């Protein structure tokens, strides 16, 4: 098992380098000079501009951070590959660069502020997804072709077809606007963090709508996977064996079918959790959620490349770790793929 995990971690390296390199190159071929972006309409004093370029490691500097000039008295632009290496080296010191806006605030600090919101939202959403999805799928499979089954199939088909952001807006409209006006402000759900992305999000009511929106499509998928898996498993020979042993229908489902049926469901939920931790850009934007997804969206619209770069770097790492956890748990659920076990060697 340890060998398997180590092997997977080694496989991370090329993936990680590949993704970051592509992004690094992309941000540099996008037109627009970052320093002019910072300056905006204002004309920058030449010395300030040189200092800024040095601070963002866009030009060659000496050990003290002072710019190096060539024989013509001009600054020397740092080549792309060198900046990429500097970026990777910086990562090992927890340095993700600094924002072009927000007064050059370190990206690591910005992400550290935003991540807790994304993580909490993802956890709430994944709990909703697991409980409702698995339960709905199970009941559908057990009571196949019943009114419940037809209902679940209808609802899940609709949810799968709906774009998440639109579903979010519909919810805002119903729970936040319609209910509020109908009950004369007596009952409603908050539709976004009042005051924008920096608002405090402590009250649990704020989580309801964004989490429902984030979980909606995945819950539908979970229910469908669960239903089809359980139906398939219930047709297996070993289920008949269990019945022939004298186990009741219920006992067979709980003791024999469930674990087998859950294997693909756990994989799906795990990978989905990875996706949610990567920041749900659409949902977070619709609900003004102060997480990394919304921050990334903002950074893209404002061309604040260090933040985009930083959040993607963190996302790549998080998703890879989640994938590893999913693989390990898969092996835990299914003994056939327990790799590197002493017996198979």
């Amino acid at each position, binding site marked *: 098992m340890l060998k398997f995990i180590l092997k997977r971690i080694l496989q991370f390296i090329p993936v990680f380098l590949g993704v970051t390199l592509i992004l690094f190159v992309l941000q540099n071929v996008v037109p627009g000079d970052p320093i002019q972006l910072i300056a905006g309409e204002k004309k920058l004093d030449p010395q300030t501009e040189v200092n800024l370029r040095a601070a963002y490691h866009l030009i060659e500097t000496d050990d003290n951070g002072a710019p190096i000039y060539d024989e013509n008295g001009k600054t020397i632009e740092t080549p792309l590959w060198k900046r990429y290496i500097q970026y990777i080296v910086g990562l090992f010191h927890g340095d993700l660069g600094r924002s072009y806006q927000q007064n050059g605030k370190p990206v690591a600090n910005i992400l550290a502020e935003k991540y807790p919101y994304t993580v909490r939202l993802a956890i709430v959403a994944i709990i909703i997804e697991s409980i409702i999805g698995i339960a709905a799928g199970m009941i559908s499979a057990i009571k196949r072709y019943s009114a419940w089954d037809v209902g679940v199939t209808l609802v899940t088909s609709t949810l799968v077809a709906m774009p998440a952001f639109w579903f979010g807006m519909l919810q805002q409209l119903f729970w936040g606007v319609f209910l509020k006006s109908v009950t004369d402000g007596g009952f409603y759900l908050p539709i976004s963090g009042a005051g924008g992305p920096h608002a405090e999000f402590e009250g649990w009511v704020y989580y309801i709508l964004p989490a429902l929106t984030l979980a909606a499509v995945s819950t539908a998928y979970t229910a469908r996977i669960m239903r089809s898996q359980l139906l398939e498993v219930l047709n*297996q*020979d*070993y289920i*008949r*064996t*269990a*019945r*022939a*042993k*004298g*186990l*009741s229908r*219920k*006992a067979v489902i*709980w*003791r*024999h079918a*469930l*674990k*087998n049926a859950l*294997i693909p469901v756990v994989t799906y939920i795990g990978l989905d959790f990875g996706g949610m931790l990567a920041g749900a850009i659409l949902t977070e934007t619709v609900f003004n959620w102060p997480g990394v997804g919304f921050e990334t969206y903002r950074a893209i619209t404002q061309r604040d490349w260090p933040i985009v770069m930083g959040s993607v770097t963190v996302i790549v790492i998080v998703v890879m770790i989640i994938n590893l956890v999913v693989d390990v748990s898969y092996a835990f*659920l*299914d*003994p*056939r793929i327990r790799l590197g076990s002493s*017996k198979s060697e």
Partner: protein
Amino acid sequence: MFGFGLKKRNKVDLRDTPIPEGHHLLEVNDLKMYFHTQDGVVKAVNGVSYTLDRGETLGVVGESGSGKSVTSLTIMGLIEMPPGKVEGGDVLYRGKSLITMSEEEMEGVRGNDIAMIFQDPMTSLNPVYTIGRQLSEGMRLHKGMSKKEALERSVELLRMVGIPNPEQRVKEYPHEFSGGMRQRVMIAMALACDPDILIADEPTTALDVTIQAQIIELMEEMQEKNGNAIIMITHDLGVVADIADKIMVMYAGQPVEFGTRDEIFYNPIHPYTWGLNRSIPEPAIDEKHPLTPIKGNPPSLVDLPEGCSFAPRCPYATDLCRSTVPPVHTTETGHYAKCHYCNDAEFVAANAPETSRTKLEGAKQKKGGEA
């Protein structure tokens, strides 16, 4: 969390009740199991009757789709209803009807009084649980054993069915066992609660020929030890030739001939049984002779032909066969067949295939004549 359903049932095991006077251990009386499907009514089992006592082995022989498996699944109460429906007849176990029994009572019979092993050992064990856990389950359920007791007994059972190093193997998963070993595990599982009747549904079909013999021997050995009855379902006459006391030949959901092993092999009276006999290769006899297959395919069970179901494939069929369902002819030994002509000794003598016994006798006479 998943502790559902392993409570010991507080019921008297039916196994311990005496068989009422005039009854057998298992009696199947004119059992009819039909499936109601969109295409029509499938008459999967259409009037099967037999009796079975402890220590006996019944061989059920027939082609695929002849209703062999459905008969035994009906006895076990493992047919989904609907679409299945018992349209007539009864199954009596120790004089008690299994057909009218409640699901809860049936759960107490299954795996306890009547156990079953299935055709494909590769898929009949749950891949995600250890052998020990799967073996223990039945004993915890029916005998109220603790986890530890059941596991200890599992080790014993594995040793009994000839699995080496059972203390270690009991902790392993099905994928770590070969096909033959898994079938041994299935047998151990079926025998765990010391059942009265062991139903084996083509237990050797999926195995290597060399392993087949081992598995059959194991079942015989276990039968000698435990005294249980065996119902051996197979399409291989060779398998039942070794171990069956009685044989039922099924065709299109009906028994066409029933008799002792010797009667079926050496004195068959139904043309279908003749056909089966002719299609067995006989390496024991020196001369090569071409195998004679039975021409055609079994009829659709939704749309059975009028008259005798076998008539369309029977080389001796007459207009009578094609219009009237044949009655059952029973001899004084209980040997019966469903054919219009099977009590016509001349017809049988003229058309029955040579059996190894008649051939040997023929050869002896020839030799004697020469000498």
